[in-house]
């Protein structure tokens, strides 16, 4: 999954994609960098996607970083919660590369419209 997301994002022009294997790794990486985009699964052991999202929104650095959450079809409640917590978009597994590419482009452009400045892209799970 991560490899697929990475490949798709790299195809879409994100030059610097960082992977985190789980919620912990993401927590470790997030405070140190600004990112153009975060893609995270909701269902992860220990630190899950919603927690990660809430963590980001509480921090100064990532209060407005675009986040795409990924979940399975039957996790509708979790998805709604994610959107309420401030996710910018969601994708339902399985999704095709085009859907990710399109969504990524949309949320990143929306963000750029608000402010400017480029940084590395990022993948999480």
């Amino acid at each position, binding site marked *: *999954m991560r490899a697929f997301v990475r490949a798709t994002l790299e195809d879409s022009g994100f030059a610097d994609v960082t992977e985190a294997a789980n919620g*912990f790794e993401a*927590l470790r990486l997030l*405070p140190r960098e600004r990112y153009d985009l975060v893609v995270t699964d*909701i269902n992860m052991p220990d630190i899950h996607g*919603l*927690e990660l999202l809430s963590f980001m929104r509480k*921090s100064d650095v990532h209060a407005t970083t675009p986040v795409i959450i990924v979940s399975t079809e039957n996790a509708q409640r*979790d998805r709604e*919660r994610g959107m309420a917590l401030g996710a910018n978009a969601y994708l339902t597994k399985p999704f095709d590369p085009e859907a990710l590419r399109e969504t990524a482009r949309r949320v990143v452009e929306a963000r750029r419209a608000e402010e400017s400045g480029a940084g590395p892209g990022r993948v999480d799970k």
Partner: protein
Amino acid sequence: MAGADDESGVREEFLSEAQEIVETLSRDLLLLEQSQKEGRNDPDLLNDIFRAVHTLKGLAGMFGLSSLQTLAHTLENLLDDLRLGRVDLTQEALDILFDGIERIQRILASGDEQSPLDISDLEKSIDRVAEAVPGERDVLRDFSLGENVLGVLTEYEEHRLRQNVTQGTPIYRLRVSFGLSLIDTALEELKARARPLAELITFLPSMGAADEDVIDLEVLLASAVDQEMLREALCTGEALLEPITRKDQPPRQVERPRPAAPRGEAAAPKAEATPAARPAVPPPGASRAEEGDAVEPSVVEASSLPNARTPNTNVALDRVGADALSLRSVANTVRVNIQKLDHLMNVVGELAIVRSAVAQITERLRSHPELRYLSTELHRIARGFERNLTELQDGILDVRMVPLGQVFDKLARVVRQTARDARKEIRLEVKGSETEVDKLIVEELSDPLMHLIRNAIDHGIESPERRKELGKPVQGLLGLTAYQKGNHVVIDVSDDGAGMDPQRLRRKAIERGMVADDEAHEMSREDLLNLVFMPGFTTSETITDLSGRGVGMDVVKTNISKLGGVIDIHSEVGKGTIVTITLPITLAIISALVIRVAGQLYAIPLANVQEALLLDSRAIRTVEGREVMTLRGGTLPLCRIRELFRMGEHVDTGRGSRQFVVVSQLGTRRIGLVVDLLLGQQDIVIKALGKSLRSVRGFIGATDLGDQAVTLVLDTPQILEEVLASNDRRGLEASP
């Protein structure tokens, strides 16, 4: 060509990974069933099972195996409903899960993952189970949990929280801070400490208030144990534990260890935290501070005291270090195809041959005085070579070793299924699953063990009604016990069932014309029990679906012998049966004793050799037309290899008439093999005999001792069987 190879490699990788998941799944399902029977619910385990099936589905999807994917998806949906409490975990639900895993197993075993699969019956059962959906009243809003917490819970976490609240388990909030770099190990450690006492529901991370390299976690947990005990277990360092109260009740003061508390008050926290207590009733007279006011300052206080934190952090680090180590060893595992190891072992075998050849050349050089210095030098080099070779060999052998638990886990599933089919209640007791054996042996063990287990349940253990009549516990006991004994591994399959009646076995054997009447009456109790290993022997009047599948105990015995093992039976009428399998630890490379008979060299696996001694002709007697010798007061049957192989009277020159006895023990039986000369010990790699020679009995294979000549390796277990089985037969006939 390379593409096809790649594909099969990838497929194999998939299969072994899927197999691994299925094995873990079966084990976890059995545990889940156990906990359900005991009335406990184990949400973590259920969640693990859900995840494993989810992974399997993903794996199947990745390899385009749609039938497997559909099956996993169906099971995943049921598991999702179960873990979220939408469906109750009933026996029926468990049966569906077991059935599903069984089907996955079958698909993997058949190697046909592509054929369309009909799972409509499974889906129907799931629909039936899923019909009753319990409604949950929203009790969470009664609690002083802000939207900032509730809004971040996943559906599953919310369900767990609600479940605990409904059951009256007190809920706590634990605030901890971890350094960024150590958060995963630190949390693992926290989880390990909490596991026996509490259920951790969620970890809500936020950036450290004081330090940006620190992450604060707000952990919600449910626990029925005494609050002080919980605090003691969880609050290392600056961690802070507080109960979460209902809104209609005044929040309690943030509790800290209260060494100075008046005696009369000390009992209060204990009483309020008894398992059945309603959530968090504050002790009378507790301060009514506002929750927020009470909590925040103490957090700030803790984080702003880096010095106070240091010693505690160090203690935690030590423990974390140990945990990290164990985690790492798991992550460092590599899956290797056994054939690659076989290949390496063969290379080692070839090197061993080189070593022997070098040793022989050294010996030859030594007899030339002018070349003696070369001999000495070569000898020194050969010794170093030998040391490294031994190390290499041990290393590869070690890699091949796997715990017997691998096969025991599969068998647990067989026990469950067989017991259900036979309508018997069985308790399986497994011991020594950590005992290690060569991977190849483990593979070959499942079938024989499966058969023994089915036999024990089907024919050994009585029906629950019958057991009640007999005054035995209704639940039959089936034991799988493994342990190492020298170079061997012993596996006992025991039951506390009806046992075997030697007299009945005797009657059956005569009825079936397997032994002559008079012969049968001379047989010892042990001989009679061993009758079950004869082809076509069965005592059960009705052949059931369970064990009567045309695979008899003779096949079990043959399979065990092929592994160089032996099988023994002990049984007592009314008390039960123990079948003991004794196996060599590895098949790959063995130490052997090289002997000479009538000018021919043979190798005897050292594992089968107990001792070797000079034959003292005065100690030989003849009992019932058969040669025996007295060895330390006991009687040892003798077998002259020369006569066994009908080799004629070849005179071994130079050594006079001295002969040797190699004492071989297998299980409880012993035999003395009479040979002309002992040439010493050597490590050998056994190669199978070619197809045309495979039917020749008495040899397990051939080897090269380094002299470029083929040396046959004696199959001592088989020779022992043949010789001890027939009183009058002399010599081995080659079977067709």
